[in-house]
């Protein structure tokens, strides 16, 4: 079966204003809205469109994390994924360990394509996809803004600093997606009802043979440095004068 595996992460919602806890132990997540990482939603949308075009037969969505992640997996099933895999663990994993989990899932599911967001908007690491590609010894195409599949190959347009780069990779491959690849669909109520009946399988790190190592310890969280309060000018002439005074014109 031609399968696409999509990795998703549960993160603090995009619209939440982040606050660092006063004791520096983390950011406030109690009572905060959680969502599917927006880049991962784009990855899932792309997988669904590929399936709808007939180029894939099954879309599997997977996540690693505590039991709380299941609502996000259900959201993905409601968007149209065929089944979900929940690798359940209460230990926060570093990107390399997450990549190992995904590597084990590629062994299990044999996808021809793995789609992931280019980064998660919580830790902003941007590592998992590239690490998976390295462990899997397969190509990677990061920051994708266009994905075209044909005969065992993918042609991917990438958003790079200089503009747009196109590369061709043999499949299977790992593609991490950027913002402009597509616009994810809205979930409709009947789809949410249907999603409740779709298979959601729970797995453990042990069954996948992954033993996480802690190589990085977060010692403290701090709020970013605040900028000094600025001044208001009333028109263009005052603005030019202020810039000249600062030696900027």
């Amino acid at each position, binding site marked *: 079966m031609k399968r696409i595996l999509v990795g998703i992460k549960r993160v603090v919602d995009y619209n939440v204003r982040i606050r*660092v806890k006063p004791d520096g132990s983390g950011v406030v997540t109690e009572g905060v809205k959680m969502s599917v990482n927006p880049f991962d939603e784009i990855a899932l949308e792309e997988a669904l469109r590929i399936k709808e075009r007939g180029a894939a037969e099954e879309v599997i969505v997977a996540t690693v994390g505590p039991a709380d992640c299941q609502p996000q997996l259900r959201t993905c099933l409601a968007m149209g994924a065929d089944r979900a895999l929940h690798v359940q663990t209460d230990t926060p994993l*570093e990107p390399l360990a997450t990549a190992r989990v995904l590597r084990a899932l590629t062994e299990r599911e044999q996808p021809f394509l793995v789609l992931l967001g280019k980064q998660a908007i919580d830790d*902003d690491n941007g*590592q998992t996809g590239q690490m998976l590609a390295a462990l899997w010894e397969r190509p990677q195409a*990061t920051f994708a803004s266009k994905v075209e599949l044909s005969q065992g190959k993918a042609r991917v347009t990438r958003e790079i*600093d200089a*503009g747009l780069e196109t590369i061709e990779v043999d499949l299977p491959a790992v593609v991490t997606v950027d913002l402009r690849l597509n616009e994810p669909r809205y979930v409709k109520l009947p789809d949410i009802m249907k999603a409740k009946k779709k298979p959601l399988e729970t797995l453990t790190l042990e069954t996948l043979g992954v033993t996480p190592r802690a190589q990085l310890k977060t010692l403290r969280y701090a709020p970013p440095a605040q900028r000094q309060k*600025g001044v208001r000018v009333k028109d263009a002439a005052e603005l030019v004068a202020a810039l000249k005074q600062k030696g900027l014109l």
Partner: protein
Amino acid sequence: MSHHILIVAEHDGRTLNVATAKCVACATTIPDAHITVVVCAANAAAVAAQAAAVSGVHRVVTVEHPMHEHPLAAAIAPQIAALAGPYSHVLGPSSTFGKDLMPRIAALLDTVQVSDIMAVESATRFRRPVYAGNAIITVEVLGGAKVVATVRTASFQAAGTGAQAPIEAASPVAPPAHTRFVSVSAAHSDRPDLQTAGKVISGGRALGSAESFQMLYRLADKLRAAVGASRAAVDAGYAPNELQVGQTGKIIAPELYIAIGISGAIQHLTGIKDARTIVAINKDPEAPIFEVADIGLVGDLFEIVPQLEQLIG
């Protein structure tokens, strides 16, 4: 104990990208740093000579292979992994080049990556932004693991020149055949580069069209400034993607940043936090951009921008 640091050079085949000199600046803040720059290229001589001149660089290693004509992570990563043995740290810039490449290297080396280093506290302790820069974390690499990292270039001043480091050639390892470069389309422009410009003028959704964005280009030319854009402006098609400034675009640190018709979403502010002076022009006095602006001007950009053009002219 000296720390042997390997920096992966970013370049276009002719010129060393300034991001590399910023990585060198970061590396020099690691105690007892002994810095090697590695240049993977089809023809490395010109770039290697520039790298050898960067202050703080002790040695340059070149790896020449036709596959390195274009920087493909799948080809470069095994090369760097093969060289990395003696080094305690392997650094690259937090540009799309480094973000693509470095995690692949880290996984090949079976080690951890620290993304977006903004400050070095010790050889194993670093500060980096999370949540789009809304929190700064201090992390410690444990157990003597090799440190692979990307350097947040906006946090470091480029190292100067004047060094004369020796240049050596290393033999290439065979790159994989599964990844092939096809093309790159970049808008060539005589304007300053967005990432290195001293002055940047950015436009947002309020510009309303690609045509009105031209107004910013004219003003930018008078100020010898680069042009940037918010995500909203890029998504709306007013400006090309490579101009996007913010969490998922470019992180910049110009002397002067002028935000025109940009409301100031958190994701945009992340990209400009290190600008020396931020100017905001917006018709909404409550726009969040004013919270970070050093100089704010509330008004209609379609009146103000032409006035500025005249006043500066």
